């Protein structure tokens, strides 16, 4: 599907989804309520069939006190991409796990939990994946500091 068709297809499923400007692939921002339902339908609708979760990552918008969770989807059936994102508050970052839809999400969410501290509800095994188990804090948050870090020149 072409970009504009993809966006209207997503908006048909979720009227509150907003397309992103200035992107070279179809990208939408969806509300965090009903997000799991939206993702399930993106995976299962016959003309969308996003059966692969390429990447899941997060962006720390510290000034707006929110974390944006980004999901990069691909359809091996129709060969199209879609980037879906949703924002959660920084201090209470909770998101439903996508692990039931795409099993790979289990590790990708562990990584986002490890580095950004997002708690995934329904995740079977939410432990740190890259850092040591006893690590304090979430280092990719913009306000993270520790004793090892060297402050850069301003």
């Amino acid at each position, binding site marked *: 599907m072409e970009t504009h068709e993809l966006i209207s297809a997503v908006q048909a499923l979720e009227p509150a989804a907003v397309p992103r400007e200035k992107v070279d692939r179809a990208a939408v921002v969806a509300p965090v309520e009903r997000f799991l339902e939206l993702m399930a339908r993106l995976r299962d609708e016959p003309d969308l069939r996003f059966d692969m979760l390429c990447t899941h990552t997060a962006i720390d918008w510290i000034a707006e006190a929110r974390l944006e969770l980004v999901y990069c989807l691909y359809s091996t059936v129709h060969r199209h991409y879609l980037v879906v994102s949703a924002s959660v508050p920084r201090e209470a970052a909770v998101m439903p796990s996508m692990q039931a839809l795409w099993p790979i999400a289990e590790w990708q969410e562990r990584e986002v939990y490890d580095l950004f501290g997002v708690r995934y509800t329904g995740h079977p095994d939410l432990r740190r994946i890259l*850092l040591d188990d006893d690590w304090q804090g979430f280092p990719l948050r913009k306000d*993270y500091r*520790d004793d090892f*870090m060297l*402050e*850069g020149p301003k």
Partner: protein
Amino acid sequence: MGLITEKLPALVEPVPGGSVLLSSLDAVINWARSNSLWPLTFGTSCCAIEVMMAAGAARHDLARFGAEVTRPSPRQADLLVVAGTIVRKMAPRLKLLYEQMAEPRYVIATGSCAISGGPFIYNNYSTVRGADEIIPVDVYVPGCPPRPEAFFYGILMLQKLIREGESLRTPGVRRKPVLAALPAGITIEQIQQELRELLEPQGGRR
């Protein structure tokens, strides 16, 4: 055929029925060591592509310097090329690998990351600021990443260091670490010329 950067420092004495080779044991040992460096395969990031893979492949051909036999086991290696970023989680493993290598062992730190932490020095929770925080380094090769030529320059510096370094009476005694920095815009021909001059003992035995 290898490119032996210095002939064996020895004297061939003709005697009836053949000839005898006269040299000092130190010179022979150091000559042999310096021309058969076996590097340990240890690449942690982008530098490994340049200094281990490109340098070892046919175009640049590390084999000319006798250092192409990369070993997957530290027990068989005598050169540790720290090619890439060392993160805090990797640091204990690097130290372990170094300690598993048999003496004499040499370390080359290639790239800004292995020298100082490079691009990751500031505001970083993970990167060790230089391999020399963990293990002693003999030669530093600057660059991000260094070109294979620059790496060869480092290898040849190390060979020189080995030849001048240890002796049987003083095992483990090394020269101070050196920085093998190439001036910008230099070509491989210039390097080879410079090396020839650098490595040739006075009087030119070549």
